């Protein structure tokens, strides 16, 4: 047992941002106890730090996973519509998918800051959700492309922005996640503080 061993401080900060405020003490205490009692003596400082960071990443992905999945499904649905039900006028589709995307990333930031009580949680969770969503959209588009690459589908893809847009635009959404998550996070943290005062 190495009772003075300490995991990376930044990882503990991230853990605080992705957990409910009420859960942080018990969860971080459990991780610290396991880290000091079992992992550090067996794996040394570097191995134990790696283990701790892996656990924190697990908590982070779980906290933003549902939002990321929703975001990814929304992009895949939009992509499938453009490929299999092509149109000449994309304005309505663009407006709907843009507002759905903005809404989801704002909601992720709001929800995350609300439960953690920290505004900084908003951008972190929204960027994570956007990253997970981007990964899902790239996997979804690749999967569709494997099964549907006939001339008609390829024409529809070219007419809706081309393959490069399908595979590069999701990356830009991570920056959107930063901006929208910051706004949602500010609102969520403010609402949390206000309600706590009222209660």
């Amino acid at each position, binding site marked *: *047992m190495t*009772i003075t061993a300490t995991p990376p401080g930044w990882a503990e900060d991230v853990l605080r941002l992705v957990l409910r405020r009420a*859960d942080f*003490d*018990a*969860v*971080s*205490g*459990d*991780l*610290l*106890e*396991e880290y*000091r*009692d*079992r992992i550090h003596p067996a794996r040394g400082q570097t191995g134990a730090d790696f283990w701790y960071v*892996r*656990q924190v990443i*697990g*908590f982070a*992905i*779980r906290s933003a996973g549902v939002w990321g999945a929703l975001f990814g499904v929304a992009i895949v649905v939009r992509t499938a519509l453009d490929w299999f039900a092509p149109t000449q006028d994309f304005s309505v589709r663009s407006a709907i998918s843009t507002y759905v995307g903005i809404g989801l990333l704002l909601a992720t930031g709001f929800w995350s800051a609300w439960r953690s009580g920290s505004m900084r949680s908003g951008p972190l969770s929204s960027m994570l959700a956007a990253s997970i969503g981007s990964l899902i959209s790239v996997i979804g588009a690749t999967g569709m492309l494997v099964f549907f690459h006939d001339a008609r589908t390829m024409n529809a893809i070219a007419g809706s922005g081309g393959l490069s847009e399908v595979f590069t635009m999701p990356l830009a959404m991570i920056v959107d996640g930063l901006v929208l998550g910051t706004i949602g996070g500010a609102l969520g943290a403010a609402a949390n503080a206000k309600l706590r005062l009222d209660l």
Partner: protein
Amino acid sequence: MADTLGSFEQAVLLAILRLGDNAYGRAVLNEVQARLEREVAAGAVHATLGRLERKGLIASRLGPGTPIRAGKARRFYRIRPIGLRALNEARETVETLWRGLEWPLKGHA
């Protein structure tokens, strides 16, 4: 209820049952790892504990911390009667499914 209890949820509930008064997060994690004989992410156990508590199958209370965890509180869990009933039903379902078959199965590998 039994049809809504996943195998990992059963593993966590049985770990709480075995640990008795010492069923806090890290102890549950280690017990589940020992029984399943594999490394399990702490996040998976905590997420399951949270879900079981929201379902009303378990209850929790905060207890004092210890020096090794820098004084941070421990959350202790206990199974509620509805949780015991769910475990009994899950076991009964599995036994019903297996009734009449000889275990281990032969000739189907």
